[in-house]
């Protein structure tokens, strides 16, 4: 069976004046399988969120293709895109910012149903009630307002809204990062349960490698707009090949005081992704080191000189 999403050579650049460009996403290719969680990890500014937003056309790509369920959606106009939007939904980091403070939360969850003509009136109310139960809330809560909920409950509401259109792909952009750990664990368990029940595919954008290890089937590591390593979760976590992946993993504090690592007193920083007019970053070359495990050849992205 073909993958649910295929991203081919996707690029997204943003102008920053004087013809210079931020190369936020630079030639990314990946697939998301059906019922699979692909995690995209990397540090601030690596392009992971821009990649996700470009995939679902919150940004228009500079170049490249996004093939969703067999159809290239990267160049579709707004009208044609609308029916495809049902298949792909997104959950953001801060649920409070994603909900209108003056509307009952049930209305927020009903909105996708109404917009996409899935249901209206009493039928929509019933579907919303079902969605609330599905995400572990009580149906009666749909008449309450966002401020009456805790952060974890609000994120459950956003998940309910994302599920309203029966999507195949749900993008979770740091969706559990702002939650307290006990709540985070509950929401992660909920997301995993829903995946099993509904056959969802997740694109899970996160900076938290320990969470990613728990959730994902496959992992893509991004650095400066490009993927430097991509493979099955075990390959990435148990035998990371790229030096950047290793550095990321080494930096994670482990919740076990017996394993205290010596921290080298480094001061290095990630170079700028801004390139002046007429120049652009060198593309990494990926090679396959094991089935499905791709690693960028070193010395290209990692060592490049910072442009001015």
């Amino acid at each position, binding site marked *: 069976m073909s993958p649910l999403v295929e991203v081919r050579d996707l690029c997204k650049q943003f102008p920053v004046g004087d013809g210079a460009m931020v190369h936020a996403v630079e030639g990314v290719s990946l697939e998301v399988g059906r019922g699979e*969680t692909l995690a995209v990890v990397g*540090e*601030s500014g690596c392009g992971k969120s821009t990649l996700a937003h470009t995939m679902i056309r919150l940004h228009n790509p500079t170049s490249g293709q996004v093939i969703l369920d067999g159809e290239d959606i990267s160049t579709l106009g707004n009208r044609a895109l609308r029916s495809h939007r049902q298949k792909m939904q997104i959950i953001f980091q801060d649920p409070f910012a994603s909900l209108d403070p003056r509307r009952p939360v049930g209305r927020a969850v009903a909105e996708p149903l109404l917009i996409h003509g899935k249901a209206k009136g009493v039928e929509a109310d019933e579907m919303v009630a079902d969605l609330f139960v599905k995400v572990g809330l009580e149906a009666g809560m749909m008449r309450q307002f966002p401020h009456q909920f805790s*952060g974890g409950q609000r994120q459950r509401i956003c998940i309910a809204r994302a599920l309203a259109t029966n999507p195949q792909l749900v993008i979770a952009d740091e969706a559990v990062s702002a939650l*307290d*750990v*006990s709540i*985070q*664990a*509950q929401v*992660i*368990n909920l997301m*995993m*349960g829903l995946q099993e029940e509904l056959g969802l595919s997740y694109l899970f954008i996160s*900076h*938290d*490698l*320990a*969470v990613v*290890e*728990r*959730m*994902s*089937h496959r992992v893509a590591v991004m650095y400066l707009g490009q993927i430097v390593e991509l493979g099955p*979760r*075990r390959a990435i*976590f*148990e035998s990371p090949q790229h030096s950047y992946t290793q*550095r*990321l*993993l*080494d*930096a*994670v*504090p*482990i*919740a*076990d*005081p*017996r*394993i*205290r*690592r*010596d*921290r*080298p*007193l*480094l*001061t290095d*920083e990630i170079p700028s992704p801004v390139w002046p007019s007429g120049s652009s970053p060198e593309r990494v070359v990926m090679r396959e080191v094991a089935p499905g495990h791709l690693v960028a050849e070193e010395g290209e992205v990692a060592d490049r000189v910072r442009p001015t």
Partner: protein
Amino acid sequence: MDPLLSVRGLTVTFGSFTAVEDVSFDIHAGQTLAVVGESGSGKSVTALSIMRLVELGTRGKIEAGEILFRNSDGEVIDLVRQREDQMREIRGNQISMIFQEPLTSLNPVYSVGDQVAEAVILHQGLDKEAANERVLDMFRLVRIPEPEERMAQFPHEMSGGMRQRVMIAMALSCDPKVLIADEPTTALDVTIQAQILGLMRDLREQTGAAVLIITHDMGVVAEVADDVVVMNRAKVVERGPVTQIFESATEPYTQALLASVPRLGSMTGLDKPAPFELVEYQP
């Protein structure tokens, strides 16, 4: 050995709401104590109370308790009973604090060098030239590359990790006996967090300062703390040496908290994702 700082029976209220209730702990010189808890547990209010900042700008009130501090003259004083002018001598000088978001702690219109110099001019009475020398030393201490050039930079020209180094440099510039760090690495990327935690550990050894770190991150706790205080709903629920807390926590809240912490390496050998095995906790 007598503690450097001893919080005893601290209770802080905001109107009818009790944010901190009967909290006690000791910090010894050269040690790191982590206060850990989830949002709203009272950990930051505890830190702000030690600095006596909880009554400034907020409507907090220290209702009860004492905060005994052995000052640089060897006297033990109760911070709760110090006047504001006396606190100003202590704050930033003998006890200093760094916060989560360095950008909000730095003034955007002054160079970072001038801001750190201001602290030493104010507290140590140095002239501008001596202060600049001191700033340069501090920047070297916190391993800011090219310190001379960096001193002239403005906060927006620096990365988050460099800004936090500036804040640490400022906090340590007057040789404080206690450094309070409220979520110092929460806003930083994990590689930068590792650098800052390594730096803090190194500096504690070099300066002998006591460190009180406030965090929600059990990974950070495991990495830096000697002793741990676990807070929930304004109260201390458990305390002990770091290994005891992680290996044989007795309180149900601590056990539930630890069960929900994602741990790198916990999935080794497993092919499929797996949900957390959560421990039910009913307050």
